[in-house]
């Protein structure tokens, strides 16, 4: 079945033009031009046609926590959010730290509506003591390693993982990316929100910004020592952003992401005591929020990621300390980035699509320019349509969105993944 996206404004890394896009039944773009026709005609007028979005940071919970999310439901939410590729975090049960689990995730992913790109743990069971079989994993195509959820605490082991990863470049065909959740647990332990004015007033034990910053500082030093490619996950503090800016200026091979919640929400939200606002790293201050936006504006932060972290409703009906950290993100990321990041539309698409695609090592098929022959991973977004956020109606098995009830501007109209129209007129097709 061929598809035509009609009358949209195409924006990709090459620039902007208003043309129809024809997608062939081989899953590739057949033609870009005027007056094209196909079996399925999808209206893209008043919309923008973009390369599909790529999330560097999604918790899809499968295997192990299927009550909260599955690869199928997570991918469906991703499709509704304009994503065509999701990097799946390895904090599954069992941990994605070996070829068997990676292949399980891939197999489940092949039946879903996004390309699922498994990342694998840097250390066995994310325990931070023994290196995971990185070579075996690289040989199956894994290019991102992370112990996300915790940082790798031991500086000696971190150094060795970095060194080891640099020896795998030829086997992968590109540098291995090590993605760090920067948090020195000795400083953050027992803290459930950002430590500061609000935590002091609310009586919720806090964790200081320095818990994140010390690990950013350590890892930049170790990148200088080893030459490994380090990707800093969910930067949340002003000093973290400044240190990454400095590392980039020094020519070090580092990249960084920020989540939508770290440039839209602050620790003041915790005054409700609702753990829907509990997340790691925690929501920070106005100053940090502004620094994250500035980091996006000047390219210090390469990509917007979701850190989509579904949790079953009853787990958020606990007290602030006992509830698990994390919030949904896949269906709100585009609207929030468009409305609140301060970036203009082409930059919004860049930080959601082709920049993260390059970090994930999938730029050959995601985030690619809209030209004949390119794989048809595309989304069509209406920058002006408004919609009301409702956790209950999201595709996720969970409903822990911190934006419940908010009206957002900018909505995904159609999503095409590998040539298949997985979202049409804002509705998931399967």
């Amino acid at each position, binding site marked *: 079945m061929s598809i035509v996206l009609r009358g949209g404004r195409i924006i990709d890394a090459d620039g902007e033009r208003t043309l129809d896009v024809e997608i062939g039944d081989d899953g590739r773009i057949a033609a870009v031009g005027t007056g094209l026709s196909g079996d399925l005609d999808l209206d893209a007028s008043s919309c923008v046609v973009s390369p599909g979005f790529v999330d560097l940071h999604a918790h899809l919970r499968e295997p192990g926590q299927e009550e909260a999310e599955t690869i199928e439901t997570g991918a469906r939410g991703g499709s509704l959010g304009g994503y065509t590729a999701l990097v799946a975090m390895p904090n599954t049960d069992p941990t994605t730290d070996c070829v068997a689990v990676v292949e399980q995730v891939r197999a489940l992913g092949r039946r879903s509506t996004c390309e699922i790109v498994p990342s694998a743990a840097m250390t066995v069971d994310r325990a931070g003591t023994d290196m995971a079989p990185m070579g075996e994993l690289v040989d199956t195509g894994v290019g991102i390693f992370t112990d996300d959820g915790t940082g790798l605490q031991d500086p000696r082991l971190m150094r060795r993982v970095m060194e080891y990863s640099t020896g795998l470049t030829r086997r992968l065909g590109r540098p291995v990316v090590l993605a760090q959740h920067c948090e020195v647990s000795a400083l953050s332990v027992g803290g459930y929100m950002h*430590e*500061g*004015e609000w*935590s*002091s*007033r*609310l*009586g*919720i*034990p*806090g964790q*200081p910004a320095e818990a994140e910053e010390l690990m950013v500082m350590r890892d930049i030093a170790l990148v200088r020592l080893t030459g490994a490619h380090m990707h800093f996950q969910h930067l949340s503090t002003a000093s973290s952003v400044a240190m990454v800016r400095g590392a980039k200026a020094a020519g070090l091979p580092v990249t960084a992401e920020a989540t939508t919640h770290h440039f839209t929400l602050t620790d003041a939200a915790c005054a409700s*005591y*609702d753990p829907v606002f509990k997340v790691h790293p925690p929501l920070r201050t106005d100053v940090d929020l502004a620094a994250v936006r500035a980091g996006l504006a000047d390219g210090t932060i390469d990509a917007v990621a979701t850190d989509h972290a579904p949790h079953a409703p*009853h*787990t958020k*009906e*606990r*007290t*602030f*300390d*006992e509830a698990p950290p994390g919030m949904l993100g896949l269906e709100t990321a585009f609207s929030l980035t468009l409305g609140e990041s301060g970036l203009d539309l082409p930059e919004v698409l860049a930080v959601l699509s082709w920049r993260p695609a390059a970090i994930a090592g999938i730029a050959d098929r995601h985030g690619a320019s809209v030209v004949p022959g390119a794989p048809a991973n595309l989304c069509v977004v209406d920058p002006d349509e408004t919609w009301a956020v409702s956790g209950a109606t999201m595709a996720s098995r969970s409903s822990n969105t911190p934006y419940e009830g908010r009206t957002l501007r900018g909505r995904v109209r159609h999503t095409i993944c590998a040539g298949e129209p997985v979202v049409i007129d804002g509705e998931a097709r399967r």
Partner: protein
Amino acid sequence: MTRPDLEEILELTDTFAEIGRRPIPKVPALRGRTVATVFFENSTRTRMSFDTAARRLSADTLAFAAGGSSLSKGESLRDTVEVVASYGADALVIRHPMAGTAHRVAGWTEASVVNAGDGCHEHPTQALLDCYTLREQRGAIDGMRIAIVGDIRHSRVARSDVLAFTALGAEVILVAPATLLPPALDGWPVTVAHELDPLLGDLDAVYLLRMQRERITEGLIPSIREYATDFGLTADRVARLPADALVLHPGPTNPGVEISAAAAADTRSVILDQVVHGVSVRMAVLFLLLGSGRNLNRGDTGGGD
């Protein structure tokens, strides 16, 4: 709470204090009402105080107690609260080791919710009884200079007392080692001192907080001995207080740590008065929430909010 709110409760407390002095200290004001104490943290005193207050108002009482987490049973907090409420409780008196719990519970139930202490956040009825005690001794709190000494960082009593004392016109000085203060005090209407001795001669009241041994393993103080030496209210320090100064403590005390036995027994100590007033204040709070606000002595049980 604003000053008028506080004053309304303190004035109502006078009535209940009077009832407490009667030969039969009981009125039928809340007959047919049920007050449930829901304690997720060990507490003998606060529970007994609320229980006594409810019984003196002729309310039925229910008690739920779980050591620490309900998670161990796999039940969410909300499940627990809904079960207790389904026994017909009109008011839930909640004590929990985590901040914000009473606030959250209030959103899940139609019953009135009283915060009997939430983690390191607040302990509002303690602050009310402290204010009542100070007012009874001094007539008014306006202009008093009050030092709160000890583990402010982890103290719900300190947070509530700062708000209540300053709302009623007192000057509050927080006295603690730097590690036992909250990480940020922006917006708090207080001054801070790290030494107690220079302040003693010019205080109207000194409020001592309970020091816990865990603070040593947490690396917050070197030893109980050093803490007691620097911040403990000894007989010597009591002697340097003005003759009409008051000594308060939320109890239970650690004799020889934050307060010596001699200091606790000094005539300036009003620690036992605090316990007595706790019942009266909690009667006032329960009555305001569950009673009609009228016909106190005739057992009107209608209305309420």
